[in-house]
Each structure stands twice: as C-alpha cells, then as structure tokens.
C-alpha cells in the first residue's frame, strides 16, 4: 500500500514536473511540500546538523528550478531530487572535513530528535505504569541507534537512510548512488547487521514490542 501510494505520488511527481516546466509555479510548490520533510530527514541524518540540512534542502530545490528544462524524465523525479541532495551532502561533508574541525555548535545528536513526532518505541507501549520505564528505554535505544547509524560506513549509511527514512526503493537507490542493485541490497544487509549487533541488547525488548 505504501509502495502503491508512493508509486501514485511518483507518477504525480512526473506530471507536476511537466507542468512546472511549462511555467506552472504552483506545481513546483506541491513538489516542495511533498518532498521537503523526507528530504530534510535524510540530509539531517547524513549531516547531523539541522541548519546544514535546511541549507542542503533549499539548495536542492533551487537546483531543481535551475535545471528544470534539462530534466528529460529519463528517471523518476524523486531519484533526480535525491541525487542532487546526496551530492550536496557529500560536498558539504567535504567542505566540513577540509575545515578539519567538528561543528561545536551542533550536538552530536540534534535536540530535535528527542522531540521527533514519528512513532517511537515508547509510543508502542500499551501499559501506562511501565510507560516511564519504556520511555527511558526508548531514549536509550534512540541514543544507541543514532550512534550506531553515525558509526555506519558512509555508503551503508546513505543506503540505510534512503531506504528507511526516505522510503526509496532499492532500484532507485542504485540509480542515486550509482551502483548495481545487488550492491545496494548487500550494503543494506550489512548496515542492518551492524545495527542489529549494536542494538542486540534491545532486541529482546524489540521482540516484546511485536
């Protein structure tokens, strides 16, 4: 269902892009509204900085405007958009590494994560008396998860984030990162196995949540 809806929205993305290429600015606004959040989360997890993520997302959409006439619909719009965003993230990380100091202003784990509105482990608890405990555990899991994701190799992390955060199919991930689909699946499996090892202590807890 999720994929069907995504496929329908992707189809809709193509139609909106054609309209935007014809001069319809409202079609572009719809594309922004549809993709800004997953795009922002992807950039946020890659860069571990909200401001950097905002800047990257804004630049990505500006580049879409600049190159709208050159978009030949050979691939999906989402693939094109995430390719632009990934490249911007890589450029941002390269520039940051050249400065050779971590960002002291940005916490390792953004404050916003703790207040994320997505479904968390704590939200899945049904018993109110254990809710505080589960909330604490959830916070620990979240911290452990974020750290584990940060510790993933870049190529595994980007595949993990595109699949888990942006819900991009493996075939499109292969186009975005420029590797075969089987390579993408292998990277994804390695990323999950690493996360599994890092969160093994909480696996029983996760099984209990099923």
């Amino acid at each position: 269902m999720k994929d069907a809806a995504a496929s329908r929205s992707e189809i809709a993305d193509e139609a909106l892009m054609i309209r935007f290429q014809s001069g319809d600015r409202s079609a572009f606004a719809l594309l922004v509204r549809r993709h800004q959040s997953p795009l922002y989360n992807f950039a946020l997890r890659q860069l571990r900085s909200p401001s950097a993520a905002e800047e990257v997302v804004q630049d990505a959409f500006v580049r879409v405007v600049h190159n709208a006439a050159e978009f030949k619909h050979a691939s999906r719009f989402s693939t094109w958009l995430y390719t632009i965003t990934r490249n911007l993230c890589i450029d941002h990380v390269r520039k940051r590494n050249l400065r050779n100091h971590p960002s002291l202003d940005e916490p390792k784990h953004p404050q916003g994560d703790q207040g994320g509105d997505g479904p968390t482990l704590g939200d899945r608890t049904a018993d109110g008396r254990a809710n505080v405990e589960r909330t604490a555990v959830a916070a620990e899991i979240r911290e452990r998860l974020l750290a584990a994701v940060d510790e993933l190799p870049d190529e595994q992390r980007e595949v993990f984030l595109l699949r888990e955060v942006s819900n991009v199919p493996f075939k499109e991930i292969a186009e975005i990162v420029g590797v075969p689909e089987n390579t993408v699946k292998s990277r994804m499996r390695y990323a999950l196995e690493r996360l599994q090892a890092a969160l093994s202590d909480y696996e029983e807890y996760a099984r209990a949540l099923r």
Partner: protein
Amino acid sequence: MDCEKFESALMDELYGELDELTSAAAKRHVSGCARCSALLGGLRATRRVAALPRVEPPADLEQRILAAAAAATPKAVPLRGRLAHAVSMAGSWAMRPQTAMVAVFLVMIGTSVLLLRGKSSRAPASAEMTVTEEGTPAPAAPPAAVAAAAPLSSAAPEAYVANRADRPSALLPPPSPTTGAGAGFAVAPAADALDDNRMRSPAKSMMAKGEDGLGAVALNAPARGAAAGATPAFAPPPPPAAASPAPVGPAGPRLEGTGGPFAGAPLEATAPPPGDPSDELWAARTARDAAARQGRACPSGPRFDDVASRAPGTQQGWDALYEGALCYESLGEFGSARTRLGTLLGVPSYRDRARATLDRINKEQGRGAAAAAHAAPKAAPAAPASPPAADAEQH
C-alpha cells in the same frame, strides 16, 4: 526455494519488494527452514528498533525554499542574449564532425543532380542521333569549258613519276612542265586488269579505217561539240585566251571545278570518277604501258581518240591527241599520226613536239620509200611474166 536463493531475496522480502509468487515461495521456505527463519526474524526486529523518528523541518523552510526558487527562476532573456545563445548553439553544432560529413554528403548529391540535369537538358533521351553528310559529289562529267588539268596533291608527282617509269622512253617524250597532265593521276593499277573492250568497240570503226581514222573520228566528234562534217574533228584550237591553260602549281596543274560546291577547290590526286576523261586517259596510258612491257603494239589508239573527242580543247584532249598520234606512229599508221599531229601544230604548247614528231615520221617514210625504190629495179626483170598474161587475155 533453497537457502541460497532465499538469502538473495532476503532484502526484497524484508522490505516487501518481491512479487507475490516469489514472496510466497520465500515464506514457504522460511516456514520450513529454522536458519532462514531466524535470519529474517532478526532483521525484522532490527528494523523495528532502528526506526528513526521523523523530524519535522522548520515551518518556514517551505517558504524559504519557494522564495529561493523564485529568486533563482531565470528571467526573460533579452533578445540579444537569446540571439547570442542561439548563435552559440548553432556554432557548436556546426563544429561537430557529423555536421561536416552531412554537408559534404549534401554537396555531392547536389552536384550530381545538377550534372545529370545538364546532360538531360542537352540531349533528351528520346532524341535520336542523326548523322548528316555535308556536300555533294562532284558531277560525273565535267562540262567542256572546264580547263582540264590533273588534280593536285603532294603525292601526285611521285605517282606520275612512278607511272612514267613504266613506259618506254622511246615512244613518248618526257612530260612538259606546262602539261603535267599525268601529274594528278594516281599510280595506275595493273594494266592487265583494265578492260579494253569497252574502249575498243566504239573505235573499231576507226581502227578498221586505218589511215581514215580521221574520218571515223570525225563521225564521233560532232557529239563532243566539234564542227560537223567538213571540218576535221581535231580543229585548230581556239585562241589561247578562250582556252585558258590550267594554272600550274608547284606540283602541276590544278583541276578546278566547274562550279557548285567544288568551285575553285583543288581536288585530291586520287583516281578520278569512272567515265571521266581523265580516267579514260589514264586507262589508255596504262594499257599502252602494259603492252609496251610485254612487247606488244600500242592498243590505246582508239582510247586516246575517244578522250580527245570527249574533251576537245582541253589539256586532256590535247594530251590524248598527241599520245594517240604517237600510238599510231608506233603501229606504222603514219597517216593517222600526221592527221593528229597536224592538229596539234595549232596548239602553242604542242607545236614543237608535233613538228618534231612529224619530221621524224617523214624521215622514216623517206627511208622506207628509198628502200622500196632500191628494191624495185631488181625485181623488174621478173616482172614481164605478168604482163604477157594480161596481153593474152586482151588478145
């Protein structure tokens, strides 16, 4: 499905990207394989734990994006800029090797089409090729007013010399520069190939008459314009002005046409057309020379007479008359020879030769008469035998 195939489909099954048939096979395998079941279960649990919370972007992010996009939207490019861009694009296309190849190909095709059209316009395919020959042949029988002379060519003198070399020099004098009647004649073919019957039959009457060849010739002459009856066939030539001699070129006289397309044009020294007096004269000479080589008497007297009667007052006619006289002299027919030579005494170019030949004939006849007179008294004693017979008859 086995474990190896299950592991290759594991990620697709984990994220629901398998088709229904393969997914059903994977589920069947998992239900029967503890290892693969544990593998799939562990990854599913990890996914559940590793579900990252969604972070909402700032509320104004959308507005900032739209504002930045609006600022980045390319404005209407001025005409100058668009033209420059168009020229740049055209130039980039023109510099490509493929464009040059196409241009060369089009030039080749266009050139070929133009050439084919030009050829077709000049020579329609339906047009028939026709060949026309300009000019008309010379008349077979030139009129009498033509100043006959041998045709001229560079080969003519040699041909005449070759012809003359075959003739015995004792019978005929060398040709005078003024006449050179034979200069234009080509080398005669073998005289044996010539047919004398055609020429002999009309002149048989002349031959039979012997000394009276003049009379026979006289009978034939009127058809050629000579005075009928009383006047001899070979009348004295007209005043020199009337019969203008043919101009003599470096290689002999030139035969000029009487008119028509060949008026004033020199003719080549090839064999004249049949029936032409020159042809007849040439044939007569050839027969004479052939007979001389064979030690026979001259058979061309009538032929020469025929040419003289057909071309009176012309160079060919005078030549034929003179050579005919020589022919009759060789045959001992001095009377016929004198007749013809007497006519030539009135022709300035032949006067000296005619007189010399007459003197020679007179000497020969004188010697013959003397010899006859010397032989006659010796035969006188024997003569009385015949008169008594006559006397016997009278008595």
